[in-house]
């Protein structure tokens, strides 16, 4: 690519001014510049939108900064909201490596939370580490099997995994409602059907000196592991080959069925773990409040991160920040809650559209981006 464009350059850059793309490779620079550019464009479009709604875009940007990173409080607010998204994004990003489009994060989150709550109630008397491990295992296995179901339907029955994982969300929600309103209901939860509470001693605490629960750290660690798995192991390589060219993968004899099941299971496991953390760090019990849409926002995060597990971390924090500042936009500027949804939508469209820019930046034509 660089050679191609080089032919069109009238004069070669002067010696000594080493360009950034030459230093770290055009692809790496693009991977940062394109999404950042798309973000700037979407913020500008959002500015036009709020201006049409009669609010000064500059004030909106100011409040967005204030509400997301403007103070220690708002920074913690953004990070807390990002925690579940980091994990639910993996529900989509991991199966995407083998070319599957799974949107079942909500179901994995709900089912993981439900089974984690069951384990927590069963382990009421156990020591905290045992109870937490038991809850985490229950959430991981339940969420993993849940999305593995979509993978199995795809691989062995040819069922479209996007549709089946979406429908599995509704089934998971129905199972949750059925259990917390029936078999698994705390009889004291009269007007808000809920499961019994897990033990207070088993709750996940906050990172010392902050109000952010440890789920954020867990999410980041899981994302780093996922990145290593995808980019630096033979399994990850095989998965990406399968995703890149299924026929080629078949020709070289890659175990496609196992790769599909593994990535779906791991994606679901991340979602189930997010559900477990939601129970153990926030909600204490399973109820309809688990259905808060973290799974769906996770899809958005995965796409914005272009299915890259490492990029999921900053993107989740960005969306956590947008949602944290949404309150201020409502309260102090009188914008409707839908304003943040509009912004999320604009960002989504801009990032998808920016895909067409990759590989087309005429590096040599500009002296910009110099180190």
């Amino acid at each position, binding site marked *: 690519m660089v050679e191609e464009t080089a032919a069109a350059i009238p004069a070669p850059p002067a010696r000594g001014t080493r360009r950034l793309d030459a230093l770290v490779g055009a692809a790496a620079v693009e991977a940062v510049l394109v999404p950042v550019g798309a973000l700037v464009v979407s913020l500008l479009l959002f500015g036009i939108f709020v201006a049409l709604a009669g609010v000064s875009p500059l004030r909106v940007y100011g409040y967005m900064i204030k509400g997301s990173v403007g103070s220690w409080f708002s920074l913690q607010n953004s990070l807390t909201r990002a925690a579940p998204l980091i994990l639910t994004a993996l529900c989509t990003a991991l199966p995407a490596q083998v070319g599957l489009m799974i949107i079942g994060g909500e179901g994995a989150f709900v089912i993981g939370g439900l089974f984690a709550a069951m384990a927590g109630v069963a382990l009421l008397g156990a020591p905290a580490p045992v109870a937490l491990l038991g809850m985490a295992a229950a959430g991981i296995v339940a969420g993993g099997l849940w999305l593995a179901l979509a993978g199995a339907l795809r691989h062995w029955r040819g069922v479209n995994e996007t549709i089946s994982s979406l429908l599995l969300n509704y089934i998971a929600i129905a199972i949750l409602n059925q259990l917390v309103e029936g078999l698994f209901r705390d009889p004291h939860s009269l*007007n808000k059907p809920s499961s019994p509470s897990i033990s207070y001693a088993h709750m996940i605490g906050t990172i010392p000196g902050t109000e952010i629960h440890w789920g954020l750290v867990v999410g980041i660690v899981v994302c780093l592991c996922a990145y290593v798995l995808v980019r630096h192991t033979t399994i990850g390589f095989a998965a990406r080959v399968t995703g890149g060219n299924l026929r080629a993968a078949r020709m070289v004899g890659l175990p496609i069925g196992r790769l599909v099941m593994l990535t779906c299971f791991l994606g679901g496991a991340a979602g189930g773990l997010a559900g477990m953390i939601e129970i153990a760090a926030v909600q204490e019990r399973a109820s309809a409040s688990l259905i*808060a849409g973290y799974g769906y926002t996770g899809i958005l995060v995965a796409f914005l991160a272009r299915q890259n597990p490492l990029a999921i971390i900053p993107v989740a924090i960005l969306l956590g920040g947008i949602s944290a500042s949404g309150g201020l936009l409502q309260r102090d500027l009188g914008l409707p809650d839908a304003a943040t949804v509009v912004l999320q939508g604009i960002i989504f469209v801009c990032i998808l559209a920016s895909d067409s820019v990759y590989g087309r930046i005429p590096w040599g034509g500009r002296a910009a981006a110099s180190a």
Partner: protein
Amino acid sequence: MLGTGAALTAALPMRFAAAAEQVVGFIYVGPHDDFGYNQAHAQGANAVAKMAGVKVLQEENVPEDVAVSKTMESMIQEDGATLLFPTSFGYFDPYILREAPKFAKVRFEHCGGLWTAKNPKNIGSYFGYIFEGQYINGIVAGYASKSGKLGFVAAKPIPQVLQNINAFTLGARLVNPKATTSVIFTGDWSMPVKEAEATNSLIDQGIDVVTMHVDSPKVVVQTAAKRGAMVCGYHCSQAALAPQAYLTGAEWNWIDLYPRFVTMWMKGEPIPNFYRGGFKEGLIKQSPYGPKVSATAKHHADQVKAGLTAGKYVIFKGPLKDNTGKMVLGSGQELIQSNATDAKLEAMNFLVAGVLGSLPA
């Protein structure tokens, strides 16, 4: 944390001008203009906003998870709120219970009637016996219905909802002892598609008056009106959506209660930690009668309402049978709507005779 707070205040000079005001925050679980549960609270917030020396903050669509904790903290720390109205039932445990000890000088007023003496003293929880209004709805519906077949679109089979279904049915059977109420549970508080389907299927069965207990009655009201059925409202008035088909409605009276609470707070008077009531205490009210309500119906309904307002009328009293024929209240037994909650009333788990439908086992 305090340091950054002070720095922020300095960065925004307008906050100084506002310092003398009392800042009151309202938090809603759904849209503030839902023609239902949340709009009723938003009307109360608007009444507070008209008071002198008060600044009102509102935030809508706040789910019952960490989001509501953060919204409460943000209203307190970033906007200086001293009185909060987190209005969704599910905000109480664990979210309000966790925030109240952290902000001892802030008052949390929760809608749901859940406070007990074990909970922090800076929390209050209030709720209304809105089934009194559904009883009046039932009387009006009993007169208006030609078929004697009434319909109820309900969210979940929980005590609050069952109280409304039963009171509506008892009101209708006061007028027409043969009246029946067919119930459809949609399964959740906001299910617009299922609510429309339920309303249509009720009307297909020959039902001519429909009422509901869902967060936003809008879909049920509009669907019923379009199909030529009559409708009784809930939460707040939906008369504007169906001026001809709307008979009356059971409404929350937050526009009366919230300014009262805010005045008490500003004067430093104690607000009750636990506050329950119906027509008598002014916690609920009835929508004005629509054009299809007969003079007889109005007279009868007004009479009963006067009895309820005087605190002399009990809706659930024995002998009362459920719809399986089982005696649920013996002769002389009463479930009284008073400030001291009746445990049996709060845990209602039956459908009275005349309700067509069943509860999950």
